């Protein structure tokens, strides 16, 4: 049977890369000296799987390399070797090399042999530094051949006496005999002398034994192989039949030295006991030299990878539910079809019911399909342990990274796009947030700083938080800089939050010196823009000396949005529900005009700017121009609030987001468009953009909002 193994390669690579992530994370979590056995076990398992798979699928260089890692991990797992920082670091570096080897194999290029050899030597070094160091015996030393048979036997006599429990191992004496029969002509004599009286007969036990005569000049190994699985579950003896009839009684008993032979019925076999060679095979892992000197023919054999097609691994549960829903949809459809064949008005009720069902199923189906795009955020989080580990070593800081909510599911696009902003933010925390150990101790804090990365569903959003217990943002320094740059005026009475907002301004960096950790390429403004592009928002909160928290809010999915339809004149717009705090009718007495700052209204204890949508969007025939004639929709974005003045509220609905940029381009104040039930297009408001437009119109500095 020929099977094209290449078809499994893609899956093998995917799971191997996942396995590498498991190994990496596990290693990073490992505290030298007191490693959690389960942790080591899961690292071992990952290595073991990669080894098994690479061997099976023909990537022998990978399998050989992984074998060395596995050996080391195995010893750690069994407690035979202490978990040292050195070993962990070497294993981590080996994970990197392994990743390169897998990538090379996937792309069908040759791996970097020098690097592999070097890393392998490192592993061997750690391995050989063990207490139970093995003398480097050259290669597998075969036990001396059974001294028998200078003459090739013409056949074998076999005595096979199963122990009583043999059947309960799932083995079957008849199958074993049949297998021997496959080797040549076989004569079988059954010995029923052990059968107990009926009253003592246990139907699940085995009482029979056999004497077999095989007339075929096969190797003894072939017979041994047949008995390999049952050698501890039976007594068996294999005696050569020599051509001249000069039979020497010399056979190998099956009994291993360790298994006591059952007392009552010792087989009466006249046998000597030369060792069974298989037992003598030294375990390969105890011969590092064998591997090192071993042939490397496989290494160049990296085959062309299974193409670079991007795939997404979907939980089968999700697919099952999808199939269920399609089934329901089909049923509803056929029901409606039948209804339509001879429709009359008296069936109107059933039609309505059917349509309602159709709507429900369609919606459910849509949700399920969206679910397929959802992946756990651990795909993104998984890189951080390594990042923080490496950075803290480089900076000489002690940092513990805590993560929670890794299983929170987010849209695939979010996974792809949120990585870089998060790396930037975590680096910031490590580089600028967490203080060096001595500074922390002096401030009465624990030596080890904590960076906590978390994700959770909150309302209709995904909330990702990066929290550190470092020194916090330097409020005054930021304010100072903001004033220098003309972003704010000294007389502005700004809240802390408004000051922190300044760091999101382009080119605003407070680091006294640009370190090579935080890099210089991107700033917080880019981070914010990336997050805005995902339809999300970012906020920062900080307390000097105590730490900072950065909160990122992202929509659950990028394709669908819960929207509030509003109308202005004859135009309909969609406001993302997540941005809306409330909608109110404002009375003229609540409105106040502030010189230079435009129109504001009082909402409880704050004054919020009023943004007249028909003005900033130039809508000609707005019905409401007097404040009391329309509705004010209070929205929030980027820590700022304002009231959008519109004619009226229409319904709330889920809308499918369509790109305006695909065929046209970006328009300030709009994040996209959607298609309404009647097929017409409605535009979706981008609240931060609307605020920017309003600011341009009123000439307010962007970051300043009013506080009462």
């Amino acid at each position, binding site marked *: 049977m020929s099977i094209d193994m290449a078809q499994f390669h893609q899956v*093998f690579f*995917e799971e191997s890369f996942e396995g590498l992530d498991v190994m990496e994370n596990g290693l990073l979590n490992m505290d030298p000296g007191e490693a959690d056995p389960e942790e080591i076990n899961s690292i071992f398992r990952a290595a073991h799987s990669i080894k*098994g*798979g690479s*061997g*099976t699928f023909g990537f022998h260089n990978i399998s050989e390399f992984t074998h060395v890692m596995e050996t080391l991990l195995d010893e750690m797992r069994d407690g035979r070797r202490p978990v040292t920082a050195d070993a962990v670091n070497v294993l981590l570096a080996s994970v990197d090399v392994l990743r390169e080897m897998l990538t090379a194999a996937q792309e069908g290029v040759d791996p970097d042999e020098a690097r592999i050899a070097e890393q392998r030597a490192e592993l061997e070094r750690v391995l050989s530094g063990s207490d139970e160091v093995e003398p480097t015996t050259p290669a597998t030393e075969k036990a001396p051949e059974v001294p028998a048979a200078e003459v090739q036997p013409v056949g074998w006599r076999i005595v096979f006496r199963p122990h009583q429990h043999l059947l309960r191992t*799932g083995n079957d004496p008849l*199958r074993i005999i049949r297998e021997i029969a496959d080797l040549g002509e076989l004569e079988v004599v059954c010995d029923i002398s052990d059968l107990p009286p009926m009253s003592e007969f246990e139907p699940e036990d085995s009482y029979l034994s056999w004497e077999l005569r095989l007339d075929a000049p096969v190797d003894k190994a072939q017979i041994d192989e047949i008995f390999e*699985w049952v050698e501890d579950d039976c007594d068996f003896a294999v005696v050569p039949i020599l051509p001249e009839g000069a039979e020497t009684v010399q056979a190998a008993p099956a009994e291993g030295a360790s298994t006591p032979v059952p007392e009552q019925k010792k087989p009466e076999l006249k046998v000597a006991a030369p060792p069974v060679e298989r037992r003598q095979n030294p*375990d390969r892992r105890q011969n590092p030299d064998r591997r090192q000197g071993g042939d490397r023919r496989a290494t160049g054999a990296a085959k062309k990878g299974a193409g670079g097609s991007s795939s997404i691994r979907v939980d089968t549960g999700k697919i099952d539910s999808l199939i269920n829903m399609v089934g329901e949809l089909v049923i509803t459809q056929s029901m409606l079809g039948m209804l339509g064949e001879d429709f009359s008005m008296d069936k109107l009720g059933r039609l309505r019911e059917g349509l309602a069902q159709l709507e429900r199923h369609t919606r459910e189906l849509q949700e399920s399909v969206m679910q397929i795009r959802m992946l756990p955020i651990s795909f993104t989080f998984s890189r951080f342990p390594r990042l923080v580990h490496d950075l803290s070593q480089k900076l000489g800081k002690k940092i513990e990274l805590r993560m929670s909510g890794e299983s929170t599911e987010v849209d695939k696009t979010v996974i792809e796009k949120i990585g870089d902003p998060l790396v930037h933010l975590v680096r910031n925390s490590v580089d600028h947030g967490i203080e060096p150990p001595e500074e922390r101790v002096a401030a009465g804090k624990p030596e080890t700083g904590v960076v906590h990365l978390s994700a959770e569903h909150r309302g209709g959003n995904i909330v990702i938080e990066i929290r550190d217990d470092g020194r916090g943002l330097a409020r005054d320094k930021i304010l100072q800089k903001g004033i220098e740059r003309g972003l704010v005026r000294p007389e502005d009475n700004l809240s802390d939050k408004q000051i922190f907002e300044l760091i999101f301004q382009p080119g605003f960096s407070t680091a006294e010196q640009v370190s090579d950790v935080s890099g210089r390429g991107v700033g917080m403004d880019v981070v914010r823009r990336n997050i805005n592009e995902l339809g999300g928002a970012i906020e920062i909160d900080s307390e000097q000396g105590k730490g900072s928290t950065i909160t990122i809010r992202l929509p659950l999915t990028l394709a669908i949005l819960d929207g509030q339809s509003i109308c202005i004149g004859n135009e309909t717009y969609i406001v993302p529900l997540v941005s809306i705090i409330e909608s109110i009718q404002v009375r003229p007495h609540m409105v106040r005009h502030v010189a230079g700052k435009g129109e504001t209204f009082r909402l409880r204890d704050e004054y919020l700017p009023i943004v007249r949508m028909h003005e900033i969007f130039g809508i000609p025939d707005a019905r409401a121009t007097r404040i009391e004639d329309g509705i004010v929709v209070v929205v929030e974005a980027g820590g700022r609030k304002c009231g959008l003045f519109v004619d009226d509220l229409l319904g709330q609905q889920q809308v499918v987001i369509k790109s305006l940029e695909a065929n046209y381009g970006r328009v300030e104040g709009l994040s996209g468009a959607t298609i309404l039930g009647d097929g017409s297009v409605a535009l979706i408001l981008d609240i931060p953009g609307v605020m920017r437009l309003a600011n341009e119109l009123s000439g307010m500095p962007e970051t300043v909002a009013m506080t009462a």
Partner: protein
Amino acid sequence: MAASILAVDDSASMRQMVSFTLKGAGYEVIEAADGVEALNIAKTRSVNLVITDVNMPNMDGITLIRELRNLPSYKFTPLLMLTTESGADKKQQGKAAGATGWIVKPFNPDQLLKTVAKVIG
């Protein structure tokens, strides 16, 4: 009716390979990703053969074999484990737990089919 085989491996690629090979040879194959899943399946139906990996999360192959042997309907069912050459002691542990035999990794589809035929051919 085709003989049914429960294939247990946490590695999707190995599982696919085993499953694909066996199905190609006409067997009915049920897949499970770890011991717990396999045991749950085994409790609801019987199969003609179980092939299990040893190193798996949640429940390893040795434990699975021990648990299966305790199920009345699996008392005599062939239970094979997939081991590597470095797992010599694993074979012994497996045997002690009630395994019928083993297949040494890496193996190719032909070896797999040959071994399967040995127990349920």
